[in-house]
């Protein structure tokens, strides 16, 4: 058994491991990460504020039964983004909900293989 396989075999399930593998499991995770970076560069928040809000979100999720294994990590990251931009008065959670529903609508009407675009009619509920 080579070194990497031996190491993998010895790894306990409680520590999810990737061997230099992909750091994002899904593209939206990378997008969420990049948004935080861009907003930080713009000076919307400091990394201290970010870390404080993120740890609150993680604790909240743990209290609600989240296993906190790293798999759900970017959910907390996203919740932190949403919370911080609402706190900073950039937008409201109502607006975010409205856009979410609109994207949902757009996704429903767009056939497979076509890029999804948001149109005004998607906002009509």
């Amino acid at each position: 058994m080579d070194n990497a396989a031996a190491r993998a075999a010895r790894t306990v399930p409680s520590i999810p491991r990737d061997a230099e593998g992909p750091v994002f499991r899904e593209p939206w995770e990378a997008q969420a990460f990049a948004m935080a970076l861009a907003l930080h560069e713009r000076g919307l928040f400091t990394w201290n504020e970010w870390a404080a809000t993120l740890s609150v979100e993680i604790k909240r999720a743990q209290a609600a039964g989240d296993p906190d294994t790293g798999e759900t990590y970017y959910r907390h990251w996203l919740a932190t983004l949403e919370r911080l931009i609402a706190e900073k008065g950039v937008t409201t959670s109502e607006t975010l909900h409205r856009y979410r529903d609109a994207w949902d609508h757009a996704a429903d009407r767009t056939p497979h293989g076509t890029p999804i675009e948001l149109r005004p009619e998607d906002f009509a509920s």
Partner: protein
Amino acid sequence: MELRVRALETVLSEKGYIDPAALDAIVQAYETRIGPHNGAQVVAKAWTDPAFKQALLHDGTKAVGTLGHVGRVGDHLVVVENTPQRHNMVVCTLCSCYPWEMLGLPPTWYKAAPYRSRAVKDPRGVLADFGVTLPKETEIRVWDSTAETRFLVLPMRPAGTEGWSEQQLAEIVTRDSMIGTGLPKTPGAPS
């Protein structure tokens, strides 16, 4: 999740807070350009250039800044050196602070509660899970990152790499060896 991300992105770009093209550039940079290469290059240089090593241990941010090719270095990068007497390991018990300018994006296990809680209580056990066994005499020092201070481990240069170029050396520096949960690849061993 995807819808929430899309909603955020649309609202933020409509309000002019973010530029979608800039977002894509960031995503690409962290996926490919940055990776652990920057960190590996810094380590390889420290192995071959004693003056750089000294500067690096003295003020990580400043020393890395002199290399030029590394952008966005954190304000306070602290480099800790492994020796036969002391092995360093990095964790962020609070959340996942991580020197991503040097190492790319953090691996899932780094962000996971088991690592975050066990690294401090039982570092030797965690290292064993990663397949790393150190001599009993070696002290293990665990560094807890914060939003302001990030740590990078300077691993020991493996024996058998005398006369190697910086580039050759950089190739054996793994991401985990710079977090302290691994060691550099052994020369000649199958990778």
